[in-house]
């Protein structure tokens, strides 16, 4: 097994926020914390793009590097997790993370009043007994131990968000991009679900007809 990764296809994400809701519900995430968020660029303009963002489980995670209590660890599958019992709520990881993944239940409060840091666990629980009530209460459900993938990706209706072993995820996306065909002029449904190659064929046919 290689490394667990998320990949969000901006061509397919329709900003339904289903992933956000699924995550919230599955882990009973504390009020004020969103382990996953959907970011939209050029909202309302034709060609707008949305992307679902959570912890990217970095190979060289900055949150791990800055933690003064060394409460972060990386599993064999490349999932970045942390021990909430060791967290002192200093907020260093919050400032270090470029994706805004670590969040605090009490928001931007003073040091010591923020509460324990909470972040996406790739549905892998935390350093408590697998499937125990303590694990669920602190980190949420452990779907990975059940042989399942993160719920946000599994329930994504357009399959914009895919998760799993980096090799498998990359292969799925590669095939998708190849089927899209076309180029920059293809967007919307054609770009997301293919059909670009048919458009190209039609274009070439028209060209040929024009020449003859």
């Amino acid at each position, binding site marked *: *097994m290689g490394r667990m990764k998320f990949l969000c296809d901006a061509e397919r994400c329709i900003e339904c926020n289903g992933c956000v809701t699924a995550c919230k519900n599955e882990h009973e995430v504390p009020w004020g914390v969103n382990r996953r968020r959907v970011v939209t660029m050029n909202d309302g303009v034709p060609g707008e793009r949305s992307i679902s963002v959570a912890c990217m489980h970095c190979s060289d995670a900055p949150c*791990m*590097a800055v*933690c003064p*209590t*060394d*409460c*972060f*660890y990386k*599993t*064999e*599958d490349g999932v970045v*997790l*942390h*021990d909430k*019992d*060791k967290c002192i709520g200093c907020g260093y990881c919050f400032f270090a993370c470029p994706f805004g993944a670590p969040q605090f239940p009490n928001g931007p409060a003073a040091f010591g009043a923020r509460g324990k840091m909470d972040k996406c666990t790739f549905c*892998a*629980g*935390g*350093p*408590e*007994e*697998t*499937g125990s009530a303590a694990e669920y209460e602190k980190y949420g459900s*452990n779907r*990975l*131990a*059940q*042989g*399942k*993938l993160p719920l946000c*990706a*599994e329930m994504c209706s357009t*399959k914009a968000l*895919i*998760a*799993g*072993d980096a090799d*498998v*995820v990359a292969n*799925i996306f590669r*095939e*998708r991009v190849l*089927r899209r065909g076309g180029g920059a002029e293809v967007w919307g449904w054609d770009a997301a679900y293919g059909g670009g190659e048919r458009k190209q064929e039609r274009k070439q046919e028209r060209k040929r007809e024009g020449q003859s």
Partner: protein
Amino acid sequence: MSTRILNPRALAVLAVTALLGLSACSEVPQVTVYEQGQYRGKTDTRPWEGGEFKGDRAAWEKALKERARGQNEYNRIQ
């Protein structure tokens, strides 16, 4: 012409002041040496160890890979 000699007490105060003042000019190495931290929290079990797979790593990997491949809808329609 008369020469005025400072009294020894004032001379001592002057010397100490000069010494303290000049001590600020000394150079102390200020480069921090970063050390790689070691995880200090509780140990975690691996996903295939607890729960339904009971240590069968191969079965866990197979289940997860199948699940990941299922995300490719082109596989489903062929």
